[in-house]
């Protein structure tokens, strides 16, 4: 049996979280020692029948009360600020991050790499490359958790959530489902393998060849008949989807919406919920006709057409300072 105290630090963000933890532990140690020490000392010194001076001042002191109200408040605000800043960065991936698709279902993780390669309960990642996970669930709520990276995000049915990281250490790490999802929740676990970039490229080419989500998405765009209306039809007027991703879409009845992945998804499954201004609500729902995998592929295709014009504009790019020394290109 081993008894580790800290988990490995496998990503650039892990160190930041650990630093906050160390500060919190120091604060916890200080206050519990002061309180416990005072309790033990007073209980000993002022034990009943011990002849000591018990002549007291008042049973209240406004100065003390203010001091021990304000001090914890200031300490709290300090921790809040540091931890919130780190969290904010954790929630905002850089625009150039490589995108991996994750689908959770009871009780497995299905992964697809941008080049097309698929795996189950295993995630292979190249070192030093910012990776963004686009995740959804086919059934209940799961949670994608890599302790060595100190990151976690619930994975929901009907919604896309994201997580991003920069793996910084070669090795293999636990992947856990951390949101209770039924009988075999404890077996919905897997392994994250961080490899050197050449090793990752080699690994991508091994095994069965699979189409990349963008290629697959392009096929689906025709197969489901999307292209019939959205690619310049004379009969039915539908908005062009070139460059739609990341743009601000004006809505029927006023208001706008940022065309992110969730918007594209909702527009396919619940087309009448948000109608683009100037168009008629004629699109049928594809709910029940398209699998989560295909939906992600279709969205990957939509993101690929016209990206670079105004795509990604809505997303802030906050990166770790360390990453500047280790610039990486999104593949493929």
């Amino acid at each position: 049996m081993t008894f580790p105290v800290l988990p490995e630090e496998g990503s650039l963000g892990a160190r930041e979280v650990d630093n906050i933890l160390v500060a919190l532990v120091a604060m916890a140690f200080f206050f519990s020692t002061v309180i416990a020490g005072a309790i033990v000392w007073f209980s000993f010194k002022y034990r009943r029948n011990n002849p000591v001076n018990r002549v007291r001042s008042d049973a209240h002191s406004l100065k003390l009360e203010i001091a021990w109200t304000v001090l914890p408040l200031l300490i709290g605000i300090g921790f809040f600020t540091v931890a919130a800043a780190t969290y904010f960065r954790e929630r905002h991936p850089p625009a150039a991050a490589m995108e991996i698709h994750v689908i959770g279902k009871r009780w497995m993780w299905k992964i697809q790499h941008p080049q097309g390669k698929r795996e189950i309960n295993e995630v292979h990642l190249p070192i030093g490359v910012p990776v963004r996970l686009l995740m959804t669930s086919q059934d209940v709520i799961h949670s994608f958790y890599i302790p060595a990276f100190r990151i976690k995000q619930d994975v929901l049915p009907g919604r896309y959530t994201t997580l991003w990281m920069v793996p910084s250490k070669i090795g293999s790490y636990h992947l856990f489902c951390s949101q209770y999802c039924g009988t075999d929740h404890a077996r919905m676990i897997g392994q994250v393998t961080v490899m050197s970039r050449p090793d990752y490229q080699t690994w991508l080419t091994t095994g069965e060849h699979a189409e990349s989500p963008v290629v697959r998405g392009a096929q689906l765009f025709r197969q489901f008949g999307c292209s019939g209306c959205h690619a310049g039809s004379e009969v039915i007027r539908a908005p062009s989807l070139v460059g739609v991703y990341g743009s601000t879409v004006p809505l029927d009845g006023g208001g706008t919406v940022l065309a992110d992945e969730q918007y594209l998804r909702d527009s396919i499954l619940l087309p009448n919920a948000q109608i683009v201004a100037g168009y008629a609500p004629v699109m049928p729902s594809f709910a029940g006709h398209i699998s989560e995998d295909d939906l992600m592929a279709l969205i990957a295709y939509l993101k690929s057409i016209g990206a670079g014009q105004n795509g990604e504009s809505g997303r802030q790019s906050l990166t770790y300072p360390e990453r500047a020394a280790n610039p990486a290109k999104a593949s493929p």
Partner: protein
Amino acid sequence: MNTPEIQAHPAPEPVAEKSYLSEHTLRSWLLTTDHKRIGILYLLSILLFFAIAATAAALIRLELITPKGDLLSAEMYNRMFTLHGVLMVWFFLIPSIPSVLGNFILPIMLGARDLAFPRLNLLSWYLFMTGGCLALWAILWGGVDTGWTFYTPYSTLYANGQVITMATGIFIAGFSSILTGLNFIATTHKLRAPGLTWFRLPIFVWSLYATSVILVLATPVLAILLTLLAVERIWGVGIFDATRGGDPVLFQHLFWFYSHPAVYIMILPGMGVVTELVTCYSRKRLFGYNFVAGASIAIAVFGFLVWGHHMFVSSQSPYAGMIFSLLSYIVAVPSAVKVFNWTATLYKGSIALDTPMLYALGFIGLFTVGGITGLFLAALAVDVHLTHTYFVVAHFHYIMVGGMVLAFMGGLHYWWPKITGRMYPEQLGRLAAIVTFIGFNLTFFPQFILGYLGMPRRYHSYPAEFQFYNVLSTAGSSILGVGYAMPVFYFIWSLKRGTRTGANPWHATGLEWTTASPPPTYNFAVIPVVTEEAYCYPEPAGPPPKDTSGAEEDRHA
């Protein structure tokens, strides 16, 4: 005018009044409207639920000795932690101090003859038992494996078993909470003895009042939520179902809108009890009375504004997360103020480490650890790593067990002579308190480390590297079990054999110590008049009258 003195000597025993325990028929118990008897009914009922839930916890800990799932099947394990959570939260912790000790002591502390609505009080107990029996029925016939949190869409679309029966049981028990809260609020407003102004109230009354406000305001949200859950599960209307345009996260918002304030329902009364104990066994006025009283109210108010800190990784907006994180740091401040004031109360006191005091000091220490680790979880980036892990389990057990259970045990020992008229064996009492403290820390401290290492909650099996801390935790739980079991035996023993006590064995202040032990049915033959502030212990502290040998020394300056 008959003015009972609340000084450090026993009041004369009233002779004419019969004790509330003098009737022995089953009917006299089941149809009683006496708040003291209803308190006893609650005590027996919650101990039953505690025993069942503790057994489930023992099975969970046994299963976790080894990394593989070998003792229980995965389904059975999931049912066990659901059973443990549901029974402990709704059928033990929430009613523990308010419905048992509060019921018994509150009216006497106020100088009243009963609660404002005695029959409503009995109805509360019957509702509680109806809910409890439904929950037990759900466990025996099919079980429930959703966890006490009932997250959708698992609970609505996927879980087998008696989800609806369990939810109905909790729904009904919720009404018992609401009625008890109403009763306490009305009693505190209307039945205080002459002269017992708000700022002369014992802090226990303040904290019960704050608890009651939360019970009345938050529990209806739970009732609404459970109704929506049942509607969704039976008719599939789609409130929480993403495939029908619903939102599973909406459930979590509603759930924590109730359940976070419910955490304060589970700790505020404990803070009240500890205040009574710390002052009594230090023989000293409470330091900063107004701040301690105000802190209870502040906790009750801010407690309603922090529910989103359970949902930092749920897909909630990061901006909402920041507001909830900041508010969580703010809600910690009144708790810290209380801890500092209790500690300052000890300074220059005359401290006796009797059993209730040991529990109270244990409470302060463990509550401090539980509170500070709450600040770890309120820190956004750290919470992303720690939430859903054993760190959370350790944190809330430090509050719920290290805090509330120790306070309940301390209060039960403190008022035991008042309730029964008999004293428990002091040495055994101290031993049990120490064993509980050691067992508790050994059980739950390793779980902080497990959590930071990344072991998720609700895991039936786990990677082998986590075994060391799990074995420690299970070993600790067996010691904790001994600490819990000891009082059961010596309390029962003391009912027949314990030495009889007078009205005020602890030489404590407070109206409950001016009436006989056990109290007469109507508590007070003549309604007392209060002329002093709470905790008016003599200054500087004199020795207790029973032990005059130290008198000179104590006054030595």
